[in-house]
């Protein structure tokens, strides 16, 4: 009797076992995770893959665009007339402000010239459209349809018609990633419009309102105060609306007051955004005063 062959016939041979493959790819992913978070080595790879994904992302816009087009086309005369009337009303309502604007601008220019302040913010900006929001529940990001090809640089501020939305954090050739001000790692230097008090607005992650942290309980902050950018960071031009204080909790047991804010911009529903060109008029950073001391200390340490 012939013995039954023990080896697997070549027909059934399917390469390394699933467990071996899992181990291989698991280690590979861990290496990638490490390389990406620690050293950011993989930005180039990301750029290349993002170009490959770009047509897909554009294709995704088509149903929405088509729907908007069709609903526009079939919009009734009545709706159009209503909208027209509304727009006219709005125009009239804004007339005083618009007429007063050149005068204010002129006055402002004169005052600035008096103070010898350089025009810090060149008013150039790029209009962009939101492509999609990130699926990642841990961060607050959106992707917009223009990138380094349209002159967008990482670090630029992003606003919508009501206020600051966020900041460009990563630029691809045809699109850019915008981190919203509600993101956990995002901070915006702000100023209270009423009192001029400066502070920093910190995002608090998905589903939570941003807060002003490290504010003393005695600070002059009230519910309803509007926060505008202070312009100290050189990212956002000063005076853009950011948020409104909706709650002030002063707990005697805590060192700081808890100040909860609501973003004024349509953070999660604005479709069209404006990427501001970065103002580069910031003076160079002063030399660190402690630097001489530290070198001295290091020298002493070395000798010991």
């Amino acid at each position: 009797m012939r013995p039954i062959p023990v080896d697997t016939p070549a027909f059934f041979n399917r390469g390394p076992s699933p467990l071996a493959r899992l181990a291989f790819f698991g280690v590979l992913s861990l290496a990638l995770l490490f390389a990406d978070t620690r050293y950011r080595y993989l930005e180039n790879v990301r750029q290349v893959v993002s170009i490959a994904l770009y047509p897909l992302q554009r294709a995704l816009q088509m149903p929405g665009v088509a729907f908007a087009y069709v609903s526009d086309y079939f919009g009734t005369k009545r709706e159009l007339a209503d909208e027209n009337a509304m727009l006219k009303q709005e125009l009239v309502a804004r007339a005083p402000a618009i007429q007063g604007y050149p005068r204010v601008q002129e006055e402002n220019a004169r005052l600035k010239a008096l103070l010898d302040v350089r025009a810090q913010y060149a008013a150039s900006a790029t209009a962009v459209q939101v492509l999609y929001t990130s699926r990642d529940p841990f961060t607050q990001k959106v992707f917009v349809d223009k990138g380094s090809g349209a002159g967008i640089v990482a670090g630029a501020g992003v606003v919508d018609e009501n206020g600051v939305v966020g900041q460009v954090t990563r630029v691809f050739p045809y699109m850019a990633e915008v981190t919203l001000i509600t993101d956990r790692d995002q901070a915006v230097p702000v100023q209270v419009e009423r009192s001029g008090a400066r502070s920093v607005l910190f995002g608090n992650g998905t589903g939570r309102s941003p807060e002003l942290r490290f504010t003393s309980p005695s600070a002059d902050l009230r519910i309803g105060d509007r926060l505008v950018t202070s312009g100290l960071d050189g990212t956002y031009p000063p005076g853009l609306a950011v948020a409104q204080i909706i709650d002030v909790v002063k707990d005697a047991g805590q060192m700081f007051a808890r100040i909860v804010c609501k973003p004024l911009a349509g953070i999660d529903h604005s479709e069209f955004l404006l990427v501001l060109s970065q103002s580069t008029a910031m003076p160079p950073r002063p030399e660190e005063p402690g630097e001489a001391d530290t070198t001295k200390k290091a020298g002493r340490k070395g000798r010991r």
Partner: protein
Amino acid sequence: MRVLPSVGSFGPASPDEILRPAKPWFILLSLLVGLVMNLAPVSGTVLALRPDFLALVVLYWCIQQPRYVGVGTAWVVGLLMDVGDATVFGQHALAYAVLAYGAEYFRRRVLRFPLWQQAVQVAALLVICALIVLLVRFVGGAPLPHWQYLVPPLVGALLWPIVSVLLQTPQRPSRSRTRN
């Protein structure tokens, strides 16, 4: 008269039904569609409920066609997802690789059950996949998310029967042809 194949026989193919071989282009196309659905611009409630379609499709092919889709394919697809989502490189790749391994480990068992019972086991696999992503982010310093974080995997499990039937449709012999 021709009867629609899906009406008379909704559910997985019965053992006496001989399926046609899966076409590699269809597998690729389905993965692409899964990726596209993951990247679709939605917000609000839909975003909170949206399951990981790509994970579902990967899981389906890992269970049905382990010769075509395995740990390696899942890993590559995961990398694409990482770029599309702008998350840390390797996060989805790791999760999908583990998912594919789980599928390969359990596939003979899962296939013995009717679709809705398969869905329960799929839920477990999808939750594990989500927890791996959570673990990676947690180590990276992210705070723990709300319990709603586990809703999308469960929604994904509920969609499992639909996805299974849809992805199996092109493999089914059409009735008119079998009769001739």
